[in-house]
């Protein structure tokens, strides 16, 4: 099947072939025994009686091997300062905006400008 390219075209046929392969493999294990099977050097889980009935050999990771979240306590301690720092940065930005607003008025407080505009009586 693999050679004919039908695997890609007919996934149902692929599943049937794999099912047959598993059945053949299970019967071989039963015939030869687990020890001789392990001696083949294959990195397969040790097959028990229950495993022989398994229809497939999927490689989906076991729940225990899935990525795990950090403990809740660690997450809380890092998130709180980050939020506080974000808020502080916003407060500093607001203060900077006030300083920017003050700039033209600081410049206009120079009496030299007004002195030139004052003039005198005709």
């Amino acid at each position, binding site marked *: 099947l693999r050679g004919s390219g039908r695997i890609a075209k007919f996934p149902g046929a692929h599943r049937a072939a794999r099912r047959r392969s598993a059945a053949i493999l299970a019967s071989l294990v039963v015939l030869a025994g687990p020890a001789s099977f392990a001696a083949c050097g294959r990195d397969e889980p040790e097959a028990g009686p229950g495993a022989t009935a398994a229809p497939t050999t999927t490689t989906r990771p076991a729940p225990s091997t899935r990525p795990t979240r950090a403990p809740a306590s660690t997450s809380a301690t890092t998130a709180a300062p980050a939020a506080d720092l974000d808020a*502080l940065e916003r407060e500093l930005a607001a203060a*900077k905006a*006030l300083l920017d607003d003050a700039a033209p008025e600081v410049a206009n407080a120079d009496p030299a400008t*007004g002195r030139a*505009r004052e003039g005198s*009586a005709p």
Partner: protein
Amino acid sequence: VRRLGAVATACVVASAVVVGHAAGAEGRLAAPCVGDALKPKVRLETSRRVAVLGEMMDFVGRRADPYGLNAAHVETLRRDREALQTLEARITSVCYGSLAEFRADAERVFVDYRVYWLRLPQTYGLAAADWLAQARAALGAAADKLEPLAASNAQAMTALGTMRDRLAAADGRLGAAPTPAPILASAVALRPARDMTANDAALRALHQALVATRAELVAAHAAGLEAIAAVRAAAG
């Protein structure tokens, strides 16, 4: 023709005598008013100043007034505006008999009020001080909140120390609201003067204090950002 000419001459002479008599009887009624040609310029200068004073009143009246100086300043501006309007009405209505009389009133528009040379820098100085006091309060609050977050971080604490030093320097220049420093309070209390030397020096000193205070607060802001960056870096 000769008779008609004689009659016309007699009429002209008679009317001149009548007009001369009337003028003599009512003082300067027929004499031209001195300074009339200059009145439009003076009125223009006066109305400009009245408008500027009104704008300044609005400008300062909308401020937060952290130093508590604005209300008195707005009242001063209001009095100046009313007095200038009265003076403008007087200059418009009076027929000045001499140039000296006219100049005495016209000079008051410039000298007695000093709208541009004194009131404008005072007003801008107050407004700038208001902005700076608000910025200083915001930076001080941020520094207080930053303190516990930076407590275990030497670099952040150094930056925070710089921030507090800058804030203290700013307080030393303009005063920590609500208490204004003498340089601010005295500049706002200045009165118009013919000789503006002392007033000008006080206004320049206030201007320099405003520039320096703003620079201190900009530096405090930068130090605050540095402290936050240090805390973030330590948190990973």
